[in-house]
């Protein structure tokens, strides 16, 4: 009996690490493409993803696949010498999701900053099976500092991929002027304002200048996606998904309407960042002291929320996070404020 129990205990002991690994998500990495023609930096196309994959595996216990281990990725990379053809676009994601097995695909580009020792990376994260891509930028020094940049990128990836779905550029300044857009109204909105005012923030009357909110529990979800200068969390957009059929049979009137439809898609889908920058600039002109717009979406019970914080002067996404829980609106809001004002760190 004792021997039998020992065997069981040993089996469990050996299985736990394996189970833990099985539970960890599988991250596949693509090459990070050099956007310049300066092939002096081409070695980084493999160094960056390998370094970040190593940190994700060793520090955060994810299962990772470096690009050279994924035949579909390697084939794409080696089949062309044209840089622009090596860059992975939204259009490629559907094909890649079937080409290899992984939960999350991470890819990107980098651009060495001229006349400096710095490099700007642009990293995209796509969960296979979803309709969205999260993209963010980070800048760091080359040389021995390159691993500090990779570590910071890995930290941001970990915070996003984990259940928190979080991102942070940096903490927001205390005692700044903020505007809050939310699906809560009335006394609950007052509670949200109260939490900010207690922490020394000045509140813009944007949205709060009415008895009722025009954003309800459903429509606030449309504000979850975001496109800013430094980061975006957006639907996959591909012009090939749109069937704007025309031909010699079209006729002038039909063709005019078709062009107007195409322009609408360009305006609201492919070039939306420009539209956002324009409207934020107009709002900023009306209220020059306003620094941040914070979008807070509460669930139906108003005990869980997500938020997005935008620096209105530069259209920068400062931070976001999902699944913030609390017993009351004030408690949830206080947690949001704590998250926005704390420095970038791994979320446990």
């Amino acid at each position: 009996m004792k021997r039998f129990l020992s065997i069981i205990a040993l089996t469990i002991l050996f299985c736990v690490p394996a189970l833990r690994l099985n539970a960890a998500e599988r991250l596949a990495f693509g090459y990070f493409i050099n956007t310049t023609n300066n092939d002096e930096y081409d070695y980084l196309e493999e160094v960056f993803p390998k370094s970040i994959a190593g940190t994700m595996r060793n520090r955060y216990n994810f299962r990772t696949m470096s690009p050279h281990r994924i035949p579909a990725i390697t084939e794409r990379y080696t089949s062309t010498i044209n840089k622009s053809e090596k860059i992975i676009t939204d259009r490629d994601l559907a094909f890649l999701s079937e080409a290899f097995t992984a939960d999350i695909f991470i890819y990107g580009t980098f651009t060495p900053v001229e006349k400096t020792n710095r490099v700007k990376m642009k990293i995209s994260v796509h969960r296979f099976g979803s309709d969205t891509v999260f993209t963010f930028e980070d800048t760091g020094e080359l040389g021995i500092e390159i691993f500090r940049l990779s570590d910071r990128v890995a930290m941001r990836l970990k915070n996003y991929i984990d259940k928190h779905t979080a991102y942070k550029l940096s903490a927001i300044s205390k005692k700044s002027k903020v505007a809050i857009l939310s699906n809560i109204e009335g006394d609950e909105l007052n509670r949200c304002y109260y939490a900010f005012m207690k922490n020394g923030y000045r509140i813009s009357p944007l949205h709060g200048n009415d008895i009722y909110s025009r954003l309800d529990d459903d429509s606030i979800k449309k504000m979850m996606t975001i496109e800013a200068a430094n980061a975006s969390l957006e639907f996959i957009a591909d012009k090939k998904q749109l069937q704007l059929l025309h031909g010699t049979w079209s006729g002038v009137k039909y063709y005019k309407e078709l062009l107007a439809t195409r322009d609408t898609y360009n305006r609201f889908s492919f070039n939306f960042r420009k539209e956002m920058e324009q409207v934020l600039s107009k709002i900023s002109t009306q209220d020059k002291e306003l620094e941040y717009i914070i979008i807070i979406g509460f669930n139906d019970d108003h005990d869980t929320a997500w938020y997005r914080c935008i620096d209105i002067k530069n259209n920068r996404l400062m931070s976001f996070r999902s699944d913030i829980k609390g017993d009351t609106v004030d408690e949830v809001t206080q947690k949001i404020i704590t998250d926005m004002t704390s420095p970038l760190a791994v979320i446990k």
Partner: protein
Amino acid sequence: MLLTNYKKSAILIIAFSIAFASCSAKKGILHSNAKIPVSSKIGIIIDSPNNLKNVVLALFMKRGYQVTAINASDLYTFKDVYDIADMKKLSYDMADDTVPTVEKTYENMYKLHIYNFELNKIQFLRQIRDEWRVEYLIILDYKDWEKVSWARVINLRTFEIDFIENYPTAYTDNIETITNHFINGISGR
């Protein structure tokens, strides 16, 4: 016997927790950045029948405020900013598939109109300030007993919210007592 005692304790704890949770949501809050001087010119927004509105306006005037009444329903028209022309252009059918690009387009359209609507409101508030010389906008909402009435004051010079209060309506309260309570908080008396 022991089980009965435990059951009683459990019921008491659950009842207390429910009462505590509902109480905390209805507790009053007050925050004031600055007192609103009684000689100020104010605009008041309330969504009530005209006879009740008059009671509220009269109470503010009695305290010395110069009052401008603004209709909540006339203040902002969401439809004016929500341009459906763009929506019409996208009305062709993609069968049952909502491809991400189309979904993205509709969502961004809605998003932009929300921001334009807020921009429109801010511009209207500037107009109230510049043309009617209103210094503060006071938003009031009255609720029955066991619910929470609330007030919010916007300083139109600084474009900041200067005062907020949630007041759990008492059994003996009416529109006059609640309004006087808010005026006391707003004026600092």
